[in-house]
Every structure is written in C-alpha cells, then in structure tokens.
C-alpha cells in the first residue's frame, strides 16, 4: 500500500502578516509545516504501520529545511517539488492538482491524503479537485482512519450533525484532520536517521506545466480590525463598562 500525504509549508500563522505596497510579503518570515499536515503525517505513520508513507510538498527550495522533521517522523520518502518564488505565485490550485495527478499516476499511489484546508488560504479545494482529475472518489473531513483485514479502510468523518463511518476501498482521495494522542518530538537520532533517507527534489519546470494563472492578485490589504480593543485588569471595571455598553446598544 503506497500512500501519498501532502505537507504544505506556510508562513507561521502566529506571525503577524506583512503587506508592502499592496503586496503581501512572505520573505524573511518564519515558515513552518502546516500544523494539520504535520499531524496527518504523524497519525498515518502511527496508525498504518505497514503502509509506505510518502510525503509530497510543493514550495521554494529554501523550504526543504522545514521538511526534514517529516522524514524524521518515519516517512519513507519526501518528494519535494521545488520552484522559484515567482513561479510559486503562478502555481494556482489547478496547477498543483495537475502536478500531483502526474505524480500519483507515474508512481502508482493507492491513496492520497491531503490536509482538510490550508491554514494560509483556507481554500480547501486541492483534494476534491485532484479527485476530479483522477476520477477517483473523494471523502472530505476525515477525522480517523483504520485499516481493515481485507485491505480496505474505514474512515470516520462528521457531516453536519452526523458522525459517519465510511467503508473505503483504494484508490481514493481523502482530506484529513487526523488526531494523535500526543505530538511526537523529533530527536537528534531521528534526524540523523532521516539524513540517510531520500529527499527527492524535483524542480518544477515552467515548460512542463501550463503555469498560466487563472487568478491575478490585484491588491493585498491588512484586514481592518472592527474591534473596540478595550483592555481591563479589574473584573468590576470590566463588568461595569461591558454591561453599560450592552445596555446602550440595547443588547441587554
């Protein structure tokens, strides 16, 4: 069983975003593997010990450093599609889905697990889009995955107010928000072992993929805060001001 798991590298969500002359600045800001993807990789390695877990990432060459942790967690191989920053800006979700589709077909993966959505763009479209391109079934919002004796899987996901267990046979695309008992810390020994493992860097060549973007970014602006921003250190002061405000606005 060959499972491909995606791992995005994003600007640390705890870092305040920067915009300069109407364009978002990401250079020089701390970048990390998306928390949901990091947990998915760990959960799949722990939960499916007999499967071969391959991790794929599409980002700039500098992001390779952030990916070492995933290999150290026990992934069999890291496939890193690297490209220049200006090329990344032109790689929209469709281009990424096509890149992944080619990889899935050429390397013969049975199952693709993606994050439920990026903490950066929150677009949540790559999984179903890839499934559409591959003509595979897709299940979104998977919370848990279990392999059965017959080789099939049972996945648990929440659909509105219903918890559903779904029998899945491969090939299939899953978008996951898996859980682990405790986040695993990577030791120095893990990192040394990981050094011997393969990080397969594949440059994304513009000539090989149609990088004609379908969306042009016109302007980025920091979202104006609609909040009042009043801070108190004393309960009675806070109580008085908040209740007065609620009464004034006829909320009480």
């Amino acid at each position, binding site marked *: 069983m060959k499972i491909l798991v995606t791992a995005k590298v994003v600007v640390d*969500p*705890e870092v*305040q975003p920067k915009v300069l002359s109407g364009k*978002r600045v990401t250079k020089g800001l701390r970048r990390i593997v998306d928390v949901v993807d990091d947990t998915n990789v760990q959960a799949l390695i722990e939960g499916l010990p007999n499967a071969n877990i391959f991790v794929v990432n599409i980002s700039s060459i500098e992001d390779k450093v952030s990916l070492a942790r995933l290999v150290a967690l026990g992934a069999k191989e890291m496939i890193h599609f690297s490209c220049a920053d200006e090329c990344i800006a032109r790689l*929209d*979700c*469709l281009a990424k889905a096509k890149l992944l589709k080619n990889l899935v077909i050429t390397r013969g993966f049975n199952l693709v697990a993606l994050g*439920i*959505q990026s*903490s*950066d*763009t*929150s*677009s*949540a*479209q790559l*999984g*179903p*889009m*890839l*499934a*559409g*391109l591959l003509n595979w*079934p*897709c299940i*979104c919002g998977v*919370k848990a995955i279990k392999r059965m004796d017959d080789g099939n899987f049972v996945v648990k996901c929440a*659909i*509105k*107010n*219903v*918890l*559903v*267990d*779904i*029998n*899945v*046979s491969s090939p*299939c695309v899953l978008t996951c928000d898996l*859980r682990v008992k405790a986040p695993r810390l990577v030791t120095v020994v893990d990192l040394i072992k990981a050094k011997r493992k393969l990080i397969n860097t594949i440059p994304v060549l513009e000539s090989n993929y149609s990088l004609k973007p*379908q*969306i*042009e*970014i*016109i*302007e*980025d*602006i*920091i*979202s104006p*805060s609609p*909040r009042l*921003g009043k*801070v*108190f250190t*004393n*309960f009675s002061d*806070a109580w008085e001001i*908040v209740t007065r405000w609620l009464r004034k606005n006829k*909320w009480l």
Partner: protein
Amino acid sequence: MGNCYTLVEEKQMALKFSKVLVLPEFDKGILTNDSRLVLGLAAEKSTTVDVLAINCDLPTALSIGVSKVYVFASGSPTNVRAACVGISILLSALSGRYDAIFVGSASVYHNALCRSAGVLNKVVITNVFEIINDELFVKSIAGGRINQQVKNLAGYPCLLSINTSLLKVEPFRSSKEAVTLQLLEFSSISSAKFSIASCVKRAKTGYQGCPSLSEASVVVAGGGGFKSSKLFDKYLVTFARLINAAVGATRAAVEAGIAPPECQIGQTGATISPKIYITFAVSGSSQHMAGVRGASLIIAVNWDIRAPIIRQADFALVADMYNVLPQLINAFTPPEPDDGIV
C-alpha cells in the same frame, strides 16, 4: 481624460453577472441562514438567479422564490458526500449555461464544486466576501487577517465559494415570481466505491444540553488552560447554561480531551457568527480566530496580556479565569425562591 476613466470605472463597477446558479443547503426542508446570505448576494449581483436544490422536497423548492429550480435527489442527506461525484457531474453539465456558480464556503457542496472545477479545468475562487464586478472579487486569506482583491482571468463561468461570515448583504427574501421546476435524475451514476458503515446522529442541541454552536446568539468558549474536562464542565458549562449560550472550545482543548470534538471552533472546526463570543483561556491563534471573524462582539478573559486574543477582542480582561468565572456564575445565578417561611 480623468472623466473618461471615471466613466469606464463606473461602467465596470456596474457590471453584473447575467445568470448565476446557487447551490443552497436545507435543514429539515428550510433554507439555512448561510444559504439565504449566498442567495442574497447572488440576487444583488446578478440579473437572474437559479438554484440547484439537492435533497429538497417540491414545496420547499417552490417556496425558494427564484425563477428556476433544478431539483436533484441524491438519497439521504448523509449520502451527500457519496453523491459528490454525481453533483459535480451535474454542475459541470450546467456550468455552460451560467456566468457564475455560488456555494457557501462551509457548505457540503463546496467539495462538489471543487471537484467539478478539476473537470472543467478551472480554479474555484474561495473565501469571497465581496463582489466588486463580474471579474473582481475580494477574498479573505491568512486566517482572515489579509483581504485580497483578485481578478478572474479564466472567463465564465466563475466558480465562487462564498465566506458567509464576512458577507454584508441582506438575506434573500422569497419573491412571488412564477417558478420553473426541473427534476434531474441521475440514476446511472454509481457512487458505490464506498458505502456508509455506520451513522451516529448527534444530539440536535449542543454540548450538555446547551444550544448548538450554529444557532446560538451567545457562545462561550474555553481553551487548553482548563486542564481537565471536569473543570471545563464545572465552570464554563455552568456559566454557559446560566446565560443560555452554546459551548465552544479551541483545537488545543479538544486535542487534550478537555472538550468534545463537536465543540471545536476555528479553521478545522466550526465557523460561527454569534452576536456575543466570550472566551476563557483562549490564546487567540489565527486558526481559531478565523472561525469567529463573524462574531459581532468578542469578550476575552486571559491572564496573559501578551496573548493575541487581548488585541483581537472588543473587551479583554487580563485576569485569572478561576477568579472571574465564579463571580460571573454568582452574578447570573437566579436568587433562591422564597419558601414563605418567616
């Protein structure tokens, strides 16, 4: 020259879609509030609005009040994910007739639209909360901290996923127009590649009998600082019950087993738009705050003045929640009834 530009700009601003298809969601035969907002936006930005109603009975379809309703039954509501293939094929087939297709970002049909986008060789413009004209949109990124204006270069149909928590439109009101119904049958599509093994319906109400997160006008949420589910129930749930609020939690609290998964708010949990959102021991990470951007008023209690929530709340109290919560519980506890004994 300046006047020419103004005229061109005004003309551009006035450009509307001529035909839009909306995929609304229904809850027990009633249009959800999110879907009313998406329909409201479509009615504002398009001359004609049609609807693809999935798992919807005919009286409900007739009551929506748009000119044309396609009705498609995919079986029981839990089969919607299984029927995603069928819905996406329908969308691909119908897309040629429309300038744009709208779904809510939190809707189950978002995935069907993304799937058909792959087939149509198009990108879905996600998290849109403002439509400037038929090719310029404003979307929210970086957990709602950046507003990005984007231009669609791919022509019609535009595939838009709408972030309803940030929308500033009036919810759609049914009109008395004559409605054309078209029933769509798709019996040939098999989604037998997976089957439902078991299905557990959650309680209609929220955690511990409190109102559900999606419907409550007041939500009280706790973070990992509660340390245990016992303390969470003792303080936070008691307070929530007293003020008839829904109970929410951060991802950290859910992962630590302090609160159940259905309470999780944020990017990977529920997106809510209550009138008042009160937090205790919530740090205010961008992933969590992305789920509460639509809250009208945020009140935060956190002992750490450096916690991001202090800057992102309307009213923030820097204090120990174990001192604050008992005072709040006391303040809202109704007085003991007088038993009449002197």
